[in-house]
């Protein structure tokens, strides 16, 4: 139990997927202008990351490893993730329309989110068990969501404050992200 707790803390705070591991930065900057959007995108990432990490775990364990085709990891993973995302989108649209309305529009944005692919690959490189993979990918997704929501909250405030003209928009967002990352550094001592 303690192990999983540590895994959670580590994935969300210490090794935050965006702020410490540099993954998923495009949507991090791109969808952090409004809190409402950030929440939608964040939950979509949690959902898809958990799901794709689990499936890719199975692909690796039962397909690539037995056949000795580890070198095709990248190719198979991205193929699986892309189809998965598209499938989930179709499924949600049919089965759970309310969820689709709140989450669905972010799903297409996720295919090319390197956080999702990155989490899947990290799970493989760390040789996690299945349960650990699920837990880790979920925690990483939560970390992404946390960072995204915090940044969007900051940006909503920044929007109304005096920033140098050249800093407006993306530059100041990046610097804010840098300061957040610095703040998250403090968690390094936790574990």
């Amino acid at each position, binding site marked *: 139990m303690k192990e999983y707790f540590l895994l959670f803390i580590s994935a969300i705070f210490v090794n935050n997927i965006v702020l410490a591991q540099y993954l998923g930065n495009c949507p991090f900057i791109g969808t952090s202008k409004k809190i409402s959007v950030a929440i939608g995108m964040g939950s979509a990432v949690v959902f898809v990351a958990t799901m794709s990490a689990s499936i890719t775990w199975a692909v690796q364990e039962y397909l690539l490893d037995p*056949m*000795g085709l580890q070198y*095709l990891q990248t190719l198979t993973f991205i193929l699986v993730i892309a*189809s998965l995302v598209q499938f989930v989108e*179709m499924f949600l649209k*049919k089965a759970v329309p309310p969820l689709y309305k709140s989450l669905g529009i972010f799903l297409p944005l996720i295919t090319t989110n390197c956080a999702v692919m990155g989490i899947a690959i990290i799970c493989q490189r760390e040789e996690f068990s299945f349960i650990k993979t699920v837990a880790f990918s979920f925690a990483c997704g939560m970390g992404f969501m946390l960072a995204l929501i915090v940044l969007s909250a900051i940006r909503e405030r920044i929007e*109304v404050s*005096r920033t140098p003209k050249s800093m407006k928009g993306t530059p100041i967002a990046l610097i804010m992200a840098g300061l957040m990352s610095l703040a998250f550094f403090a968690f390094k001592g936790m574990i």
Partner: protein
Amino acid sequence: MILNSLLVLMGLGFTAATILAVASKILHVKEDPRIAQVEDVLPGVNCGGCGYAGCNGAANAVVEGKSGANVCVIGGIETAQAVGAVMGLEVLDMELELAFRDCTGGQRAEELFNYEGAGNCRAQALLYGGAKTCPEGCLGLGTCEAVCPFDAIHMGPEGLPVVDPLACRACRKCVEACPRGVLSIVSMSAKLLHLEEVNDCLAPCQQKCPANINIPRYIEAAKNGDYAGAVNIIRERNPLLLVCGRVCPRPCELDCRRTHVDEAVGINMIKRFVADWEMNNNLRLHIPCAKETGRKIAVIGGGPAGLSCANFLRRLGHSPTIIEAMPELGGQLRYGIPEYRLPKKDLAWEIQGILDLGIDVRLNQKLGTNFTINDLEEEGFEAFFMGIGAWASGTMRIDGEKAQGVISGTEFLTGIGLGQPPNIGDNVIVVGGGNTAIDAARTSIRLGCDVTLLYRRTRAEMPANIEEIEGAADEGVKFIFLSAPTKVIMDDKGKATHLECISMELGEPDDSGRRRPVPIEGTEERYPADTIISAIGQKPQLSCFYTEGEEQCNIDFTRWRTIDAHPQTLQTSIPMVFAGGDAVSGPDSVISAVGAGRIAARSIHYLLTIGKIPLADNTLRRLIPYTLFKDVDGCKNKTRTPMPHNCSGDDRISTFKEIEGCLTEEELQHETSRCLRCGLICYDRDIPLENVFTNRVGEKVE
């Protein structure tokens, strides 16, 4: 290994593709195929500028008809045409929407405190709601300019955003960004449909005007020489500007802030100038109408209320038909107001302009006699407007009223209007103190009679316009105040010869706030009269609503025997029937009828399009107290231009020539320059505004 790789990858590709292909079949949500087509032609950027959730959401909205082909704000006309091609929509018919700034204050609006924080309106609004005294005014820090993705907004020299209509794509970004609701995205229809709300920027004159004409704006336009602009602004609220420019009792001028400096701005003279300018140059400025809807509406009564209602319905895209009982349109404008106040040719010119929008007319058709509402319903009319006016005269309730030579004011004026002046002899007594009484008296003067006007209260209580009373006095009408008729004396043939009257004194104030006249016993007096015109208490003729032989009708009336209609929607007890003008309010001004016509048109439009009539709870109902100042400082006196007169002397009392004239351009310049350009609470001072801080609205800190 090559074989393995081949098998695994092909297998994977095959599986993925198959699953997706099958899933897309099984999980296929029944969607209009046009959604995908529309989505294909949209830019696919998911920017959200259109207000829908991504391009897919926008495509859905288009297909469901919630949005037009021009849904995409960034795609421009090409995208709109492509979407239109998919949907089979005509793109050019889409109504143009633009960002519109309500506030006119800018730098002249006073500030509560000196703000030196972040240069952003939203930041300033976080601090006590912003530094401007006016609760609705533009803060002027240009957040809208910053958020505009199309570079269409720039801060003007007055500290107000100026929208470039060519660059604006109505993306709503500025509307969302503005913390004060100064900007809105409006189309022409939206402007016509808007009911003034207390948080709009409303100068007192605009609040007071029964039709809520945007007076400061049209005066501003007239001042800048943009007479066409002024005409268009007036037409947003009042299609009868030639008429009102002549006969309006101008309630707006009563509350003009300039009255606290010297005299009210001659608002109506300015209106008349621009209206005459259009007519005299025979311009017939283009009046835009929304896309045709094909909904048929019957407007019963071709008076000011009916004309106004039909005009606005037509401009909103519907197809109204005016059904008029008289041989010509105009109602009281034609048959009540004498020629010397409103020349018939001007009226005809104005009415023609309205009819030219595409309004059908049926003349000589009287409700209840020639047709019923049921007939019209069977004909395909979907809604009805009752603008039947108040044509029935009240009685004097005295003996001998049935005598020959006693006629009602409306009857008399109608006869004149129809070109059949009744034979009234030499001595005429007019009973009543309203405009109808004065009109009857002044008309009788022009027919060469000796006219006496009898009113039971004093001159100060007369409901008629002061100018009218003065005009009547100038023309030789004799007034007998504090006198009420008691009996008509007849000769053997039943013809009236004298009117017996009794003197009155003013007692306690009654419900209307006016002091009730009380007769003084024993003061009866007889006045000789060939004709007695009773011009008191006009009421609507309601008999037309009763089908023959039935006691009841399904429309409700008030206890004053007017039509009972909801004050904000003008809906009657029958949902599809609306009523307005004198028929609802009792005898009232033209401008009130015009205002009612627009409100009814708005209600009908909403009922026909969305099935309900939306009402904001902050609709303007009475004057906003904090906008009515007791004193207006910082302004120098400027004399009001006197009303120009066209004729005098014999010409005036013996012919029906129009009396009042129109301003010259110089006079117009002077008069428009007197306007303080009021906003909700701001106005133009002669002294610069720097360091004028107020702690409460309208009160200066010493």
